[in-house]
C-alpha cells in the first residue's frame, strides 16, 4: 500500500446518555480531537488525533468521556511488540527520528521496587513522629572532613573554619531542572512559589531565568548548560547555587533543540537569543573537552560569584559514572547531580531515551561507595534525579547514599500532567509543556503551587513515619545506611553493587 493510514493509539468512548453537548471538550482540546457538527447536532471525536492526555475526560461535567487504549492488536509476539512494528512503519513513512517526551517507559528492572526498608522491633523502639522531633534538614554543598575548635577564655568555643556556601533544605527534596521553553512560565511560577513556601529549591533548567521569576531567585539553582542560554551576571549573582549541566538522564551524550517556532518574545528575552531562531544546545560544552576544562569553568564561576555559592555539576548516569564523579569532586565541585535513565525531558529521540544510561539506584550506590573509598565523600553533596514516584523511592535513594533528590515528573504530575509523552508537540492541554497562550493560561500558578506544596507535605509525613519506624530521628543517620535496606528478586551481583543484603539476612 502506498499510503497506509496511521493507527490510533487511543479510542474515545462517549456515553451518549450522559453527553449534554456543552461542547467543553470541543473547545479545550489542543489537538482538535472533538468537533461540533452543527448539521447533525452531535459532537464527533476523531480518535487518530488523541494523545491520551485525559484533559477532556477530567473536564467533562457529566463524566461522559472515557479514553482507552486502542484494542486493535497485532499478533502476539514477545519480540516484535506493537510499538516496534509501528515505530518502523512511521520511520518508513517519514525518514525521521522518532521523538518522545518524559522519561523512559521501558520495563527496565526497577531497583526501587526490589529494595525493602527495615523497621525497629523490640530491641530498639520505633519513634513516633507526632510526639518526637523528626529531623529532615539537609545541607547541600561541600563540607570539611574535620574542624579545629578553640576554647575561649570566657569558657565558650569558637570554630576556626567557617561553614558557608551551603543550601539549607527543610526536606531532602528539590524541584528538578525544567527550562522555561520546555515548560510554560506559569508552570515555572508554580514551582518557584512552592519551593519558597516549602523552603526547598527549584532549578531554572537551561533556559535562563525570566524577569518575573527574579523574586524567587534566592531559592533558585541556575543552570549553565552547553548553550549558555540566559547566562549573565545577574543570573549568577542572584541565584542560590549554580549547576553546570553536562548531561541529563533522558538523553545522555546528545544535546537539545528548541525549534524556532517556539522561541517567542519572552523566551527570546530570557534565553538571550533572537526571536524565532532555533535554540540549540550542543552535545558537549565546547569549552569542556576534558576534566581540567571543567575545573577551569567551575573556578571561573566561583570567582564570578565570590566563592559564596555552591557550584555543582549535573551528569547522566552512565557506565563510568563512579570515576567520572570522582573526577568532578577533584575538579572542585560542591555538589553532583546524577540523572538516571528514567529522567524526563521535553523532547528526545526514543531510541536514546530508552537505551542510553543506567538506573539511578545503581548510580547512587556505586558513586557513594567510590567516593567513600577515596575518602572524598564529604567534599560534595550527591543529588539523585530520575523518576522518583513516591516517598519510599526517595527514602531508598537516601539510604543508598544520596544527600537529596530532585523530582521532575512527579512535580509535573501534581500540576496535571498525565505522562502522555507528547511534550515535544507543544500542545500540552494541561498548560505545562507549551508556550501557546490559549493553553498556558490553563495552569493557574496559585493552584499549581498549592498542589506542589501538598505533594511535598504528604511525602514529608510519609518519610517521617518510615524514618521513625526504623528507630531513626535524623535523616543524616539514614544517609548511606544500607543496613536499613534489604533486597528481593536481586541476584548476587546486583546485591553486591547496591551494597545491600538479601531479605532474610540479619545483621
Amino acid at each position, binding site marked *: 500500500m502506498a499510503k497506509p493510514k496511521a493507527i490510533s493509539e487511543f479510542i474515545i468512548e462517549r456515553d451518549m446518555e450522559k453527553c449534554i453537548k456543552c461542547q467543553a471538550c470541543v473547545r479545550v482540546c489542543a489537538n482538535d480531537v472533538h468537533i461540533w457538527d452543527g448539521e447533525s447536532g452531535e459532537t464527533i471525536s476523531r480518535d487518530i488525533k488523541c494523545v491520551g492526555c485525559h484533559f477532556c475526560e477530567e473536564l467533562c461535567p457529566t463524566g461522559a468521556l472515557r479514553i482507552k487504549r486502542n484494542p486493535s492488536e497485532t499478533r502476539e509476539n514477545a519480540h516484535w511488540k506493537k510499538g516496534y512494528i509501528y515505530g518502523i512503519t512511521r520511520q518508513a513513512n517519514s525518514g525521521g527520528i522518532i521523538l518522545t517526551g518524559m522519561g523512559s517507559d521501558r520495563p527496565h528492572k526497577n531497583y526501587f521496587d526490589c529494595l525493602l526498608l527495615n523497621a525497629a522491633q523490640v530491641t530498639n523502639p520505633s519513634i513516633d513522629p507526632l510526639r518526637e522531633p523528626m529531623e529532615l534538614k539537609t545541607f547541600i554543598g561541600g*563540607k570539611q572532613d574535620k574542624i579545629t*575548635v578553640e576554647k575561649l577564655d570566657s569558657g565558650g568555643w569558637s570554630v576556626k573554619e567557617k*561553614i558557608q556556601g551551603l543550601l539549607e533544605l527543610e526536606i531532602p527534596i528539590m524541584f528538578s531542572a525544567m527550562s522555561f521553553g520546555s515548560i510554560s512560565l506559569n508552570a515555572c511560577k508554580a514551582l518557584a512559589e512552592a519551593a519558597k513556601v516549602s523552603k526547598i529549591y527549584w532549578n531554572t533548567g537551561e533556559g535562563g531565568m525570566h524577569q518575573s521569576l527574579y523574586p524567587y531567585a534566592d531559592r533558585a539553582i541556575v543552570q549553565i548548560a552547553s548553550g549558555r542560554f540566559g547566562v549573565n551576571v545577574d543570573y549568577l549573582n542572584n541565584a542560590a547555587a549554580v549547576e553546570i549541566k553536562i548531561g541529563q538522564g533522558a538523553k545522555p551524550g546528545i544535546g537539545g533543540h528548541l525549534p524556532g517556532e517556539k522561541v517567542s518574545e519572552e523566551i527570546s528575552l530570557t534565553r538571550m537569543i533572537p526571536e524565532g531562531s532555533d535554540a540549540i544546545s550542543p552535545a558537549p560544552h565546547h569549552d569542556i573537552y576534558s576534566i581540567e576544562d571543567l575545573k577551569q569553568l567551575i573556578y571561573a564561576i566561583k570567582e564570578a560569584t565570590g566563592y559564596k555559592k555552591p557550584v555543582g555539576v549535573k551528569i547522566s548516569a552512565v557506565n563510568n559514572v563512579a570515576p567520572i564523579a570522582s573526577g568532578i569532586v577533584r575538579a572542585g565541585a560542591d555538589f553532583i547531580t546524577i540523572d538516571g535513565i528514567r529522567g524526563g525531558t521535553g523532547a528526545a529521540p526514543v531510541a536514546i531515551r530508552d537505551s542510553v544510561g543506567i538506573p539511578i539506584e545503581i548510580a547512587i550506590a556505586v558513586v557513594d561507595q567510590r567516593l*567513600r573509598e577515596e575518602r572524598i565523600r564529604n567534599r560534595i553533596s550527591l543529588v539523585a534525579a530520575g523518576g522518583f514516584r513516591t516517598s519510599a523511592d526517595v527514602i531508598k535513594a537516601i539510604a543508598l547514599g544520596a544527600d537529596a533528590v530532585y523530582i521532575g515528573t512527579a512535580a509535573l504530575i501534581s500540576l496535571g500532567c498525565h505522562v502522555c509523552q507528547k511534550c515535544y508537540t507543544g500542545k500540552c492541554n494541561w498548560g505545562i509543556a507549551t508556550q501557546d497562550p490559549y493553553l498556558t493560561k490553563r495552569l493557574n500558578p496559585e493552584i499549581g503551587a498549592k498542589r506542589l506544596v501538598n505533594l511535598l507535605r504528604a511525602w514529608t509525613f510519609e518519610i517521617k513515619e518510615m524514618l521513625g519506624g526504623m528507630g*531513626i530521628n535524623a535523616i543524616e543517620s539514614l544517609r548511606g545506611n544500607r543496613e536499613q535496606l534489604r533486597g528481593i528478586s536481586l541476584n548476587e551481583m546486583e546485591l553486591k553493587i547496591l551494597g545491600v543484603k538479601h531479605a532474610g539476612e540479619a*545483621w
Partner: protein
Amino acid sequence: MTYEQLKNLEKTSRISCGCGISGIVNRNGNAFSGELIISSICMMRERGNGLGAGYAGYGIYPEFQDRWCFHIMYDQPREKENVEGFLETRFNIIQQEPIPIKKIKSLSFVPVLYRYFLVIKDEFSDGLISEEDFILETVMSINRQFNNASVFSSGKNMGIFKGVGDPDEMAEFYRISDYKGYIWLAHNRFPTNTVGWWGGAHPFGILDWSCVHNGEISSYGINRRYLENAGYYCTFYTDTEVITYLFNLLCRKHGLDLEISGYVLASPFWSKIEKEEDPGKQGLLKTLRIVYASALINGPFAVVVANSDTVVGLNDRLKLRPLVAASDSDFVYVASEESAIRKICARPEKVWMPEAGEPIVVKVNNKRR
C-alpha cells in the same frame, strides 16, 4: 553449636542485646579495689542472662605503666605461636604470661588467655605514623589475619577482662578483686541469640579507650562506613566497637575534646540549636552536625567510655536507655540503675539523671604516673 560455630556466627553478624553498665572513677587518681565495681554490676544481675560480662580497669599495672599491654585470647593453643611470631617482628616483648585466673566449674569453654607487655621496636618508632596509629594497625592486623586469636585489650596501664558468663563468675575467674585501679568499668550482657565466643563480650577497647554500652544503633550502617573510610575496620560487628572507634577518631585524630565529641555523637535537635543563646556555641553545634553528619548515632544508647584520664557518660538524644550518675567526695559513679550506685555508696552527696544528649565528663587529676 560448637564454640567454633558460635564464634563464626558472632564474628559475621550483629547480635542485639540489652545490658547493664556501670562505671566508677576516682577524680584524684587514687586507686581502689575491684571489689567495688563487682558489687555494683552484680547488683544489676537481672539486666544480663549469664551470656556475657566483663570489666575494664585503669592503673592496674603500675609497674609496667609505660609499656603497651596486650590481652590476647586464643581459641586454639597453636595460634599462640603464630601471633607471638608476629608480635616479635614489631615489638620487644618485655614480659609475657598467662592472665592470672581461677578455674570455675560453671564455665564450659575457656580460651587460652595471655598478656604481653610490649615496647615498639626502634625501626618502627621513628616512622611516619604515630605510636598510637601503629598499635591500632597492629591490633587490626592480628584480629583480621588470625582467625583463632583476638586482641581484646591494647592500652597502657589498663586492661579489659571479659568472657561468657555471669558478672560474678567473670569477677571470680579473672580475680578482679586482686587489682586496684582509679577507673573501673563493668558490663553485664543480655544477648538475644545464643553466644559462646568470649571475644564478643564487653567492654570493648582499643588503645587506652574502653567502652561499655547498652543499646542498639539504628545508624550502624553509616557509622561503620564512615569509620572504615577513616581506617577503622569493625571486625567485632558490635555497636560498642563503633562507639569506641568514633570516640577514638574524634578525640585522637581530629583533636576534639570529649565534651565536643559527645555533641557530635548525640547532637541536639535543630530546634534546640536554634534556641541556643550563645552564638559561639550555636555556631559550633551547627558546624559539628553538618561536618560530622555520618558520625551521629541514632537509636537508643547509654554508654560509659573511658581513657586514661577521662570518663564520659552519654545518653542518646531521646534518652531511650537509663543512665544515672552520682558523686561523693572524689568519686563519681555512672550506672544503668541507681541501685547499682547505692549498693556501693549508700548516701552519695549528689545523684542526678543526665539529660538526653548531654555528656557527663569526669577528668582525673594528678593521674598516677
